[in-house]
């Protein structure tokens, strides 16, 4: 479906969504609700490609062969935005649909740990504060903690959840040290390296995202800690509990107000050029906006609603369909 001239593959009557697996359950839920409420439209196709591959597809161009919506578990990057521009995807609507809580969890019969971001950083960073990590047990990290071997199941480096872990927890723990904070302005790369690199000697175990298996592993191995999306914690409250960080337990409320460190915003990006071309696309955004309230059905699936002001602002974007300008991207 390139130029109007060819016209052969002109249009599509089905919304196409690609992108992050984190948003997959939310967007599919909206998609499903959308057709049951609007039977005249066809069901959307939601593909879980991962944010990066999805962004690539999204930015590849406009036309029936390219998706309309990108699910992103992080903000679009400057480079990706430029890629979009280059391929003619000029107008993009950016909507923050809610928050995904990153939660540290342990088995119900676990050691009931309470950690700080610095503890976590020191336990799983590759080179805490620039020195190789030798900690074997939590006690080595912080004498107040039990002498339990450090075993953390967490997202792999390919996943967006991992980015959040680095950004929202490790970096904060790292910056607790003033020297590191200072380093940030001197040598940003080195700071990143020291602060966000995760150890690879077995204490941190990369596991798949969205994986029920982590929960099962934790019940089987009560001394381990898991890092995963808040929705898993909620779904499995019978067998696992949240680990307090800086004395805050992961709950809906603490994540929503960002007091639990580990919350990240989730976005969808919509192609402006498709808004008029794809039947139902606008209505779909409306459905999304109506679903992301704290009492909406997305909450049941583990989405944490954004603060009221953010929701209102984004609801406006979703109805007015204002395009982003991308100047504040990194």
């Amino acid at each position, binding site marked *: 479906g390139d130029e109007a001239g060819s016209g052969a593959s002109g249009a599509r009557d*089905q919304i*196409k969504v*690609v992108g992050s*697996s984190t948003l*997959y*359950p939310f*967007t*599919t*839920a909206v*998609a*499903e609700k959308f*057709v*049951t*409420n*609007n*039977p*005249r439209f*066809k*069901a*959307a*196709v*939601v*593909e*879980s*490609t991962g944010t990066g591959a999805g962004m690539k*597809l999204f930015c590849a161009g406009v036309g029936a*062969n390219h998706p309309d919506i990108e699910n992103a578990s992080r903000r679009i990057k400057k480079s990706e935005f430029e890629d979009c521009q280059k391929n003619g995807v000029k107008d993009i609507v950016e909507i923050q649909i809610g928050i995904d809580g990153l939660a540290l969890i342990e088995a119900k019969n676990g050691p009931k740990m309470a950690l700080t971001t610095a503890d976590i950083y020191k336990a799983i960073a590759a080179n805490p504060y620039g020195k190789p990590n030798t900690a074997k047990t939590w006690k080595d990290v912080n004498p107040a903690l039990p002498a339990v071997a450090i075993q953390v199941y967490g997202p792999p480096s390919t996943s967006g959840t991992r980015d959040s872990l680095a950004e929202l927890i490790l970096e904060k723990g790292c910056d607790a040290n003033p020297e590191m904070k200072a380093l940030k302005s001197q040598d940003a790369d080195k700071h990143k390296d020291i602060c966000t690199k995760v150890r690879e000697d077995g204490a941190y175990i990369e596991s*798949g995202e*969205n*994986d*029920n298996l982590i929960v099962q592993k934790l019940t089987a191995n009560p001394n381990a800690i898991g890092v995963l999306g808040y*929705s*898993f914690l909620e*779904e499995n409250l*019978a067998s696992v509990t949240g680990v307090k960080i800086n004395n805050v337990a992961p709950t809906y409320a603490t994540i929503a107000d960002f007091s639990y460190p580990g919350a990240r915003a989730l976005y969808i990006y919509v192609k402006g050029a498709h808004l008029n071309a794809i039947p139902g696309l606008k209505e779909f955004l409306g459905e999304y906006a109506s679903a992301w309230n704290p009492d909406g*059905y997305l909450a*049941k*699936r*583990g989405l944490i609603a954004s603060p009221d002001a953010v929701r209102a602002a984004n609801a406006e974007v979703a109805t007015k369909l204002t395009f982003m300008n991308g100047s504040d991207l990194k």
Partner: protein
Amino acid sequence: MSKAMTVEAPLPTIRAARKPTDWKTDAMQRRITRRYAAERRFKLMGLGAVLISVAFLAFLLITMLGNGARGFTQTEIRLPVDFPRAAMILDPAALKGPHAEVALATADIEGATTAAAVAAFGPAGADYISDSAWLKVRDAIRDDPSVLARKVEIDVPAATAIDLAAKGKGEPPAEAIYKRLNVEGRVSTGFNATFLTSADSTDPTRVGIWGALKGSLLTMFVTLLLAFPVGVLAAIYLEEYAPRNRWTDLIEVSINNLAAVPSIIFGLLGLAVFLNFMHLPRSAALVGGTTLALMTMPVIVIAGRNAIKSVPPSIRDAALGIGASPVQVVFHHVLPLALPGILTGTIIGMARALGETAPLLMIGMRAFIATPPGGIADPATVLPVQIFLWSDEVSRGFVEKTSAAIIVLLVFLLTMNGLAIYLRNKFEQRW
């Protein structure tokens, strides 16, 4: 007659060096006992190997069956709905016209259903029924708009927790609720027809495999349409006509190699060529089928060549000898005789394609598709990918659905393999 050749050569020295073997000595008998013991051990090891392999298969099948059988059943709750009291803005007359769907969509049936559940089971009642329970209510209205004037009882799917409790896999609170409802006679567990007739959903009580199955069938259709003729023709060419030169060697090497290339690499090929280069529609059975066809074609070629090779050359000589042209020889004699073998190979190749997942992940068939595909260019997913997707789902209700989908897939595959074995045994010919 001819005794002339007799040569007396007794080799006396050597004969003396060796005494005749006495097989009756103790040592010899012991040795034999030992050898027979070794023989029995070896045989037992062989039997053991077979039994272990079969046991593993049985274990796998039984596990799947045990988990999956539950996926075919669904617990339903008899929900009393008092329509007149529900105050829905729904005009029964509108349900007759062309705008019935819109009318149904705009009425807040969901709210009414939730309210009915709360009214029937208390404040937590909404959690007893599945999120999609209201669809049943909607269907009930659509089927018979007159219910709107009455109070009726409608069987709606129970929430996953209750469903699991009904199947003995639940947690204590849900079990308590289930027991209560059971005493009241409000729950029943029956065959889940939805599972066989609907497509993917986010709600485990509403999911079905029909969408994926249809996707699989469409994909297989494309695969068969491409791979079978190409495979058979290529097999004929290579086996019957190809001159021996570097080109045919190259073809031969590629085919043997393609048969062994990891399937995921075909996925990378499909991604690069069909999607990025040819811009065929993503997630479509067309692309999936074509990718799998490339994978299946070498299997068919190899099976086809073996089948063609096993047709005795004497048949070809006979036909050539009375003046049949090479093309006639093949199409009149060789191909009909080789067909059972070719079909067997095709079925096996198709069965493999039907069970294939990895390459399809690369070309976008890993998608949530809530309506069964209408054609080969529509977005579709296939059974194995559906299984993969469900195995990753958060909701616990998907566990049994995954196993149930596996059972469906296995039934198809085992049928196909069985058919292949049957064909092979029936038509296996030795000349």
